[in-house]
């Protein structure tokens, strides 16, 4: 059955098939494999996105969906003349610039601590990661106990130390308090950071310590460069999340889901929600959100463009 002639033909056939259509085969496999994402993206991502873009050029106010009129760039022009929009955009950028570097650094520092040989590492890991898995609704509640002006825990501590108490949620301190609350969740990055640190080969450190490199030098020459892809990922995610802050200020300084928080914590997404839900300015709200999307996209492109100067990949990124 297994004659040499037959097996030779089979072999020949399979090699030609492989040889000729390797590229086609790869392309087909690629498109088959991404198709679940791609199809859902087209129908449930791109279509609503473009539909929203279309709505942002109309006079849509919630109930006139069958009777829309194109108003051109009117909504977009309004955004730049809306002092609340510009104010909230400024506040959002301000908070992001403070929050992103600090949270990235804390995430990395915690991961470095946890990557050492320490007793009870599992408990520390859980403690550090805990805040980032606590649902945001509960976080708001917790920090209200902490920050409360009368009989808040922080103020009770200050009283105990005979120091003047602080109204943590007033105009002057609300943003600071909010950033602290958000930084409480900075442990979110440790999972990815730790995975990255574990991925660095121990041989490199052994070789370095044989060569007499100090711990600091090992960090600068081995850990830091090999961690840049992870840091890059965390920075990008940090920017994207920080610019969309919405629910945290409301939970800390408001009462209801569609409430407006104190002025210094009046961020851009909050403004968009207010316009859409409180004032029924759907079309204008869509324009606001599209401008936010463009801002986020631009900032990310900037980080991406600079990444080739500071992000180090071990394997070459083919394609």
């Amino acid at each position, binding site marked *: 059955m297994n004659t040499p002639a037959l097996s030779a033909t089979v072999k020949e056939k399979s090699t030609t098939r492989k040889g000729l259509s390797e*590229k086609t085969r*790869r*392309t087909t*496999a*690629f498109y088959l*494999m*991404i198709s*679940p*994402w*791609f199809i*859902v*993206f087209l129908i*449930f*991502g791109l279509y*609503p*996105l473009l539909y*929203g873009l279309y*709505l942002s050029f109309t006079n849509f106010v919630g109930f006139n969906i069958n009777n829309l009129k194109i108003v051109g760039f009117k909504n977009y022009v309004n955004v730049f003349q809306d002092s609340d929009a510009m104010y909230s955009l400024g506040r959002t950028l301000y908070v992001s610039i403070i929050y992103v570097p600090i949270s990235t650094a804390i995430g990395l*520092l915690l991961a470095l601590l946890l990557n*050492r040989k*320490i007793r009870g590492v*599992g408990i520390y*890991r*859980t*403690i*550090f*990661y*805990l*805040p980032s*898995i*606590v*649902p945001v*609704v*509960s976080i708001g*509640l*917790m920090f209200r*106990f*902490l920050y409360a002006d009368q009989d808040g*825990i922080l103020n*009770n501590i200050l009283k105990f130390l005979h120091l003047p108490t602080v109204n943590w949620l007033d105009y002057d301190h609300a943003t600071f308090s909010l950033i602290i609350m958000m930084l*409480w969740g900075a*442990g979110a990055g440790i*999972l*990815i950071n730790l*995975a990255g640190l*574990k991925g660095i080969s121990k041989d490199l450190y052994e070789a370095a310590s044989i060569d007499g490199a100090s711990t600091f030098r090992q960090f600068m020459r081995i850990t830091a460069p090999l961690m840049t*892809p*992870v840091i890059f990922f965390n920075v990008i*995610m940090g920017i*994207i999340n920080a610019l969309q802050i919405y629910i945290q200020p409301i939970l800390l300084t408001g009462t209801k*889901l569609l409430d407006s928080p104190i002025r210094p914590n009046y961020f851009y997404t909050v403004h968009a929600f207010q316009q859409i839900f409180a004032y029924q300015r*759907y079309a204008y709200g869509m324009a606001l*959100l599209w401008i*936010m*999307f463009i801002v986020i*996209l631009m900032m*990310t492109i900037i980080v991406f463009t600079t990444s080739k100067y500071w992000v180090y*990949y071990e*394997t070459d990124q083919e*394609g």
Partner: protein
Amino acid sequence: MVNSASNRISQFLVYALLLVFSAVFIIPLFLTVSNSLSPFFSLPTFFPQGFHIENYKLATTMIDFWKFTQNSIIICVISVTTTTLSSGLVGYAFSRIQAPGKKFLFMIVLSTMMLPGIVTQIPTFILFHKYGLLNTFYPWLIWGIGGSPFFIFLYRQFFSAIPKELEEAARIDGCSIFRTYWNIFLPLSLPVMATVSIMSFQWSWGDFIGPFMFLNEAKYPLATALSTIGYVQPENAAVVIQQLAAAASILFMLPVILLFFIGQRFLIEGVVTSGVKG
């Protein structure tokens, strides 16, 4: 001598930092537990005033707690299984297979990650309303199959770190592309899969804005129920019983915390590198 002394100092510093950070991270949680055990309308204090464990029972009976929990579980099971499998497949394709248009498509993945969720949520709501998909769990199935750009990116980063030789060896042995993925890369990515499943569980367990928009109250998961219905006095809906809210939020976070505690060792002591090296 010098070395061991400096070693001891650095070890001491590590433990000191660990303790300080632990304290900072644990205090707000401890306060919530304290408050959940205190009598109604007492002011929050550091240590519980009394031990009112019955607050927990009340928290589960005053609202339809278990019904909401059931909804949460349905949403989580659908989302976690579909997202984890689908994102892995897509992430593999983006990290390992050459094809025309790949770069462009990957830019789309990244851009959707940067897309503020709400930009599509409002038009999606209008469209779902048109096609009668509101108040069903189908949207979570569809979104799950689509994977999540965040997880696709995560898988891709992990797969990119695996040496080419492994794949070439499989190719020489006659493995098809899909088999290479299924039999070699997927088992290697178990730690990533665990990470992704736990993260997507956390995410779908904690999400309350999505269900708030797309479902009505009977189908609310726990997160949405707790943030919209809440624990108010029967005779005055403006007065929230904070102790019950605290108890409910402790119960609410318990599954996520337990899951992480069980999964974390496996999560981080990744097979990614050991599998590649071994």
